[in-house]
């Protein structure tokens, strides 16, 4: 019979890769989201356009196609990324494009009243953003950011298609080596779910900390 402890260990190694992809991808996504989200609200048209093009391109094409491009086509342009880097880039930029809209939406949903109050108090645009709007918009973004991070986690399963040894890929190998389908797939389902729970729990924690004493904002 197959050496199950060894194979399960293999899946755990894959889980580590999945976790790495999720963490680094999320960091890239967060940076991209704030750049592009604030960019779309910029007073300079060129920046608005650039942000819009980035967002629409990455939301418009499938994460799938983006991965294949990053992995198979970019090398022809002289950019050869390691599978890990290609995976992080495609996942981060893809999810970042969605999260950019979250940033923009949260900023726009701070009531107009608050903008008017800052005008009446004669704050500059930058002061308004820094001291009044962002502190109120951030707690609004967090729940959706949590969802975005879970989306990213799930999308990492797709990188098995560019032969990055993540959890799903390892499960496929274990399946090929042992001939058993149920055990490896059930195991990774549980692992994915556990990771998703960790993400949403930490987001809730963060949200609670940020909105402390802020009940009744809306």
């Amino acid at each position: 019979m197959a050496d199950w402890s060894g194979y399960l260990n293999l899946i755990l190694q894959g889980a580590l890769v999945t976790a790495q992809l999720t963490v680094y991808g999320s960091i890239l996504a967060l940076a991209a989201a704030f750049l592009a989200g604030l960019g779309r609200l910029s007073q300079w048209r060129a920046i608005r356009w650039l942000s819009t093009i980035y967002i629409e391109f990455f939301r418009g094409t499938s994460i799938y196609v983006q991965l294949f491009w990053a992995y198979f086509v970019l090398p022809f342009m002289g950019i050869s990324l390691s599978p890990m880097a290609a995976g992080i880039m495609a996942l981060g930029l893809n999810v970042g494009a969605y999260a950019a809209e979250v940033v923009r939406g949260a900023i726009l949903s701070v009531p107009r009243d608050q903008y008017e109050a800052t005008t009446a108090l004669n704050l500059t645009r930058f002061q308004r953003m820094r001291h009044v709007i962002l502190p109120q918009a951030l707690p609004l973004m967090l729940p959706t950011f949590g969802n975005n991070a879970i989306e990213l986690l799930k999308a990492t399963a797709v990188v098995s298609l560019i032969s990055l040894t993540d959890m799903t890929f390892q499960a496929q190998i274990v399946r090929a080596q042992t001939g058993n389908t149920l055990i490896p797939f059930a195991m990774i389902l549980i692992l994915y779910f556990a990771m998703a729970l960790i993400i949403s729990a930490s987001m809730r924690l963060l949200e609670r900390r940020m909105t402390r004493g802020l009940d009744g904002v809306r």
Partner: protein
Amino acid sequence: MTTPIIRINQLDKSFGTLKVLDGLSFDVMPGEKLALIGPSGSGKTTILRILMTLETISGGHIEVCGEQLYHMQKGGTEVPANEAHLHHMRRHIGMVFQHFNLFPHKSVLDNVTLAPMLTKGEPKAKAEARAMELLDMVGLADKAKSMPSQLSGGQKQRVAIARALALQPRIMLFDEVTSALDPELVEEVLLVMKRLAAETDMTMLLVTHEMGFAHEFADRVLFFDKGRIVEQGPPDQIFRNPEHERTQTFLRKIIAAGHRV
């Protein structure tokens, strides 16, 4: 004779095709307390918002403290004011809103000190000392550390007044500052405003539906309808002896609805 602190001259304002202010002209003297009354939609809020530069204007001129508000000189010709000019002019003006618009993520004290520290670069200690004085004046010194969500409506509105005063504007605008409050809480805000009116020589413009308060508070009452001034004069004249028919019906309805004038 002193010169007016606000001069409004042939002011037009349209929203799309809707003409909200129509060739409006009036002056306000330094220290004057003005009440703006009139039916819903007559443009009272719009005038205050224009003075606070929260809107743009469609035509006409406004002069505040001797300078154009929405225009400036550039190479000898008059051009629309840019953000820097508006920023410069807004020093003179403060506003209190119907829904308070406090910053919900900042404590009461921080609400009051934020603008002086950011716009005037006041050191924290000085801004806080002054804020405490103001909070004391509105009777809320003990709430300095509270968050706005922990206050009642009347308390929030008093904080909003303190916040606007912290910048020491020469002109204060009040837009229906009590109409979002429970009736029992109205009094505490009106008390603060009466004291303010009596103790300072600030110029004040007040929009209200509280006719009794307008009567006590104002030196002069302007009655608006459809973006124009229908009638103006001292409160006794407007409330006891309105000349114009529109003013008479308006006051009659308000009284029928249970308000004292």
